[in-house]
C-alpha cells in the first residue's frame, strides 16, 4: 500500500524547501554589477553645468556613487547622513542626480549641504539604467580599479555603513554580496 505514503512524502519534501526558504530573504537581489567594472559615464555637473564629471576622474581612488533625486523622499532622509560621512573625509562621494530638474537640484545642494565631490546630472536616466538602479536612493562602492565591490539599495543606514561598507573601504574585509 505504498500509494498511501505518497502524500506524506510529498509533504516532507515541501517542508524541506520551506526550511531552506525561511533562511533566505526573498527581497535580496544580487547585483550583477558586483565584481565588474562600474559603467562609464560622463555627465554635466549639477554644481556647474558647463563642466563635466566622468568616472575617469576617480580612477585610482575608492569612491561611493550615490544615486539621488530631489523628488525622492528617502534621499532627503539619507542626505544628512551623507553629509556626516563626507565630513569624516573617509571616501569621496560622487552623486548622480537622477531624472531631476536642475534648479531644484542646485537649491537642494546649497540649502542642505553638499556631501558630493561632484554630482552628475542624469536627466534622462541613462546612467542609472547602466547601473541597474531600481529606485533612488542607491549607493555603489567602487574600488581603485573601477570595480563595483558593494551595492546598497535604499536609504544608507549607520548599520550598513559601519558593518558592511567601512570594512570594505578600510580594506579589512572582502564581500561579494549586496543586501537591499
Amino acid at each position, binding site marked *: *500500500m505504498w500509494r498511501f505514503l505518497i*502524500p*506524506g512524502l510529498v*509533504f516532507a519534501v515541501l*517542508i524541506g*524547501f*520551506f526550511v531552506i*526558504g*525561511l533562511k533566505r530573504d*526573498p527581497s535580496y537581489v544580487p547585483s550583477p554589477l558586483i565584481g565588474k567594472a562600474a559603467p562609464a559615464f560622463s555627465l554635466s555637473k549639477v554644481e556647474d553645468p558647463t563642466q563635466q564629471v566622468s568616472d575617469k576622474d576617480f580612477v585610482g581612488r575608492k569612491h561611493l556613487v550615490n544615486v539621488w533625486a530631489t523628488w525622492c523622499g528617502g534621499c532627503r532622509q539619507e542626505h544628512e547622513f551623507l553629509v556626516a560621512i563626507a565630513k569624516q573625509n573617509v571616501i569621496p562621494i560622487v552623486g548622480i542626480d537622477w531624472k531631476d530638474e536642475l534648479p531644484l537640484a542646485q537649491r537642494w545642494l546649497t540649502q542642505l549641504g553638499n556631501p558630493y565631490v561632484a554630482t552628475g546630472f542624469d536627466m534622462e536616466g541613462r546612467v542609472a539604467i547602466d547601473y541597474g538602479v531600481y529606485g533612488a536612493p542607491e549607493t555603489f562602492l567602487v574600488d581603485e580599479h573601477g570595480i563595483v565591490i558593494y551595492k546598497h539599495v535604499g536609504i544608507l543606514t549607520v548599520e550598513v555603513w559601519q558593518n558592511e561598507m567601512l570594512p570594505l573601504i578600510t580594506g579589512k574585509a572582502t564581500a561579494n554580496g549586496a543586501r537591499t
Partner: protein
Amino acid sequence: MSVELGHFALILAFSLALAQAFFGLAGATTHRAHWMAAARSAVIGQLVFVVFAFGCLAAAFLRNDFSVLYVAGNSNTELPAFYRVAAVWGAHEGSLLLWLMVLVIWSAAVGVFNRGMSTEFISKVLGVLGLVSGGFALFIIATSNPFERLLPAALQGRDLNPLLQDPALAAHPPMLYTGYVGLAVPFACAVAALIEGKLDANWARWVKPWTIVAWLFLTLGIALGSFWAYYELGWGGWWFWDPVENASFMPWLMATALIHSLSVTEKRGLFKSWTILLAIFGFSLSLLGTFLVRSGVLISVHAFASDPSRGLFILIFLALCIGGALTLYAWRAPRLQSNAGFHIISRESFLLFNNVLLVVAASLILLGTLYPLFIDALNLGKISVGPPYFAVVFLIPMLPLLFLVGIGMHASWKQAKLAAMRKPLLIALGVAALFAVTITLLIYGRMSVLKFVGQLAGAWVILSSLYQPITRWRAGQRVPPGILGMCVAHLGLGVFVLGVTTVESYKIEKDLSLGTGQTVTVGHYDFNWVDTHQVTGPNYDAIEATVRITHDGQEVTVLHPQKRVYHVQTSPMTEAGIDAHWQRDLLVSMGDDLGNGVWSVRVQYKPLVRFIWLGAVIMAIGGFIGLLDRRYRTVKQTAEQTVQVSDPVSVAARS
C-alpha cells in the same frame, strides 16, 4: 489593567486547549465518560477566555490605549470608532487572535451540535481541534503577543493602514477566517475517522454541512477580498494571482472538491480515502497560507509584517499537524477501502473527474506560488511567477471541468442512462453556442476561440443548472433543497464564468492625461474632466475630480475620483470613481498631478464585471439552500449505520 487580564485570559485559554486535547483524545480511547465530559467543558471555558481576551484588546482600541504596542501601531485618535474595532484584526497579532477565536467558536459549535455522532467520535474531534487551537494560542503568546505594553506610552498612534480603512475590508478577514478555520472541522473529523479506522455514510452526512458552512464563508470572504481590491486598490483589477490570494483560493478549491467527494462517500460509500485526503489538504492549505503570509518566504503585494522566528514556529506547527495527519493516513487509510464499483458513465465517475480536476488546479496554483521558493532554494536564481502563468495554466483543468459539470449534474448514481438526457442536453448546448455567437459577434463584434469558448461554457453551465428545477416544477414535483442548492451553486459558477469571460475579453483600459474641460471617449462613453478641488475627510485630505460621463449626449453620471492623503500615514491613496451598472462598470482613477490642472488618469470600461461577485454570491446562496436539506437534520436511527456496499449491479459493473 484589562490588557493584562486579556493576556492572562489568553494563557488560561491555552491551558484549557491542552486539557481539551488530552481529555478529548485520551478519554475517547480509554472510554472514560467523565474525561470526555471534561473535554467538552474545556471547549466552553476556552471560548469564554478567548472571547474575553479579544474583548480586552478591542476595548484597548476603543479607549485609544497607546500604552499597548499593538494599539499604538495600528490605531489613532482620529480613526473613526468603527475602524478602531476593525483595526483589532488590522495587523499580524490581532488577526491571529481573531483566527484563534474563530477556531474556538467552531470547536464550541462541534461540542453543541453533536447530534447523530457517538460521544467518542465527538470527543476525538474536540481533542484534535484542541491540539490545533493550543498550537495557535502558544504561537500568539510566544511570538506575537498583541497585549505587549509600550512604555512609555505613545502620545498618538501610527494609525491603521489607510488601505484597510474600508467597510468591505473590515468584514473580509472575519469572513475569510471563518471559512479558513472552519476547514479545521472536516480535518479533525478526518483525523478522528482515521483513529477509529471507520468511516461510514453517517460520518459523511455529518461532516458535509460543516464543510458547506466553511466553504460558504470562504466563498464570500474571497469574493469580498476581490471586490475590495477592485475598488480600493484603485486600478480596476479583480484578481492578481498574488501569493496571499492564492493562499485563500487553494483551500477553496479543496473544500469544493471535498463537498463533492463527501456526496459520493455518503451515497455510495466510495472515495473514502479521497475524502479523507481532501479534508486534510483543505486545512493544510489554510495553514500553509498562514505560513506563507506570515513568514515572509514569499514576496507579496499584501505587506504584512513578517518575521523568521514566527515563520519557524508556524513551520514546525505545520509539520506536526499535517505531517501527523498524513502519517496517520498512510497507516490507517488502507483499512478504509470499499469494494463497490461504478460504471464509467455515472455520477461517481463525473464526481471523480471533478475531484481530480480541482486537485490538479490547486496543485498548479501551488506550484506557481511556490516556484520562486523552489528555484531560490536550489540556487538556480531569482524569478517571479505572475498572472501570465496562472491565467493560462488555470484554464487547462477548468475548461474540461465546466463542460463536465453540465453533464455530471444529470447523471445518476451507479450507471447513468444519458440517452434520455441527450436531447435536452444537446438543445442546451445548441442554445449556449447560439448565445456565445450572439454575444461575441453581434454585441461586442470581436470573436476568438477563447472568447467563444468562455461564453459557451458560462451559458452551458447556467442552462444545464436550470434544467432540473424547471422540469421538476413544471411536472409539479417538489425540488428537495439538496438538489436545488446544487443547481443554484452551479448556476452561480456559470454566472461567474460569464462575468470573467466578458470582462477579460471586452474591457477597455486607457491611460491618459486630462486637463480641465478636456473630453475623452472610451467605449461609447464620453468622459469630461470638469475640474479638481480639495475635500477634507475625517482623517484625510483629498483632491477630488469631477468627471461628467455622457453617452450620445445624455448624461450618464458624474464621478468623483479622489487622491487621498491620510494625516498620519502620509502615503497617497487612490479612490477610484466607479459607476456601477449590472451590465458594465465605468471607472476613473487619478494618477499623478502633472501640473497646471492636468492629471494622469486611467479610464476603464468593464462589461459585466459585477457578474464575477454576483456569481460568487449565488454560489454561496446555493450552499446555504443545500444546508436546509432535511437529511442533515433528521436524527439517525442507529449509531452504526453503514453503507450498503454489496450492490449486485455495481459489483458486476466493476468486474
